[in-house]
């Protein structure tokens, strides 16, 4: 067995978990708000949300550096007021991961909310339910299969994020070395055994996640789709 440093695994899980949490909360909120409404510029806004999905990772990474770099718009402000630096920290990896996985969460959530029968929410309203109660007793549980798919996709995307992360978080062994970075630099330096090890880990993770979601949704689909 290889002498292995497992810190990339811990870091990757930490980064993906935290970014998925934010992406889920914010993505669900924004998607619920936008899906229910029609307003001027809605499709432009939605295109903007989905943009990170089609941009090359290095472009996203460069954009993030412009925003969060030491001399960036937000970065310089954070540094000045809170003495807080994002670039070259694991927080940078979280931010990169949030930006690239947000479109997946938003897309899934918006589709889930749009397919809901508005009459169910209305029925709840006539029975005295507040908007908040309508959301957490009716909308959220019924949209859950779609939301879960978005959640898992976001997590998997966060786990695999490389390009933008490398630019914003840099590669600092022990601090910002996620699994994809470990793989990249292992391949680059010809450490094929190490690379294979991490590739197996990440494939196992991604595969079992998708397998589990498919199994789960097949098992529960009846309860959620039939009336």
């Amino acid at each position, binding site marked *: 067995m290889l002498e292995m440093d497992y810190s990339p695994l811990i870091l990757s899980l930490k980064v993906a978990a935290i970014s998925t949490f934010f992406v889920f909360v914010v993505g669900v909120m924004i998607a619920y708000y936008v899906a229910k409404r029609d307003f001027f510029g809605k499709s432009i806004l939605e295109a903007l949300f989905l943009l990170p999905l089609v941009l090359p990772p290095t472009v996203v990474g460069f954009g993030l550096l412009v925003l969060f770099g030491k001399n960036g718009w937000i970065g310089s402000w954070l540094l000045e007021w809170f003495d807080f630096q994002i670039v070259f920290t694991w927080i940078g990896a979280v931010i990169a991961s949030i930006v690239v996985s947000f479109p997946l969460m938003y897309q899934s959530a918006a589709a889930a909310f749009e397919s809901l029968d508005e*009459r*169910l929410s209305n029925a709840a309203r*006539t029975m005295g339910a507040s908007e908040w109660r309508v959301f957490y007793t009716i909308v959220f549980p019924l949209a859950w299969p779609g939301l879960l798919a978005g959640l898992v996709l976001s997590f998997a995307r966060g786990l695999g994020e490389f390009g933008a992360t490398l630019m914003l978080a840099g590669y600092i062994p022990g601090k910002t070395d996620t699994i994809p970075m470990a793989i990249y630099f292992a391949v680059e330096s010809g450490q094929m055994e190490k690379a294979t090890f991490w590739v197996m880990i990440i494939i196992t993770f991604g595969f079992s996640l998708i397998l589990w979601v498919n199994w789960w949704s097949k098992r529960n689909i009846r*309860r959620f789709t039939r009336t």
Partner: protein
Amino acid sequence: MLHVNIHKQLAHYEMAIQFKMGAEILVLVGPSGSGKTTILNSIAGLVHPDSGLIVSNTHTFFDTDQKPLPARERQIGYLFQDYALFPHMTVEKNIWYGVKKKNRKDSQKMIVELLQVLGIEHLLHKYPHQVSGGEKQRVGLARALAARPSVLLLDEPLSALDRETRKQCQDELLRLHEMWKIPFIIVTHDLDEAERLGDRIIYLEQGQITDEQRKRQLISTY
């Protein structure tokens, strides 16, 4: 008891409706697109008229230039077309959804009675997709009445049922009305059904009342 005056610009015509009713069964009849459901939705607070007045007993639901009362504060029972039961909740959870926490105890007896009258006690732990069409209709009715509404709105309540079940349900509706003594507004496009159920029938076309009929043998309560 219920005063309705609605003016609203719709896609193809302007709706202008006015009627008053007591604790009777009012049936709205008309071709599809004549504005029947819009009237129910306006009373329930799911859509709002451009102008007019909707008052139930002492509560003003809608008055031109005032902020409309939100749907959740109107105490309306609404049986939707196809019932709109919550698919992820058991029949029991569906029925209790609209009962306020503080009213749980007081409502217990009433709901047990309601379940008996409708004959659905044995369905409590089933999910909506596990019960038949007629049973769904009864669950929807129980759910609408469980929150002790001051008005009951029914949108095509029987249209999804076969002939036999439909007859049975009509009788049930009449029986429930005897018990509850609140205004029932029923929307249908079936004339026979309207005549069987209604104390009063209002005929609608293009958002206007074209005719009104009253059953002679019944005495209006207002």
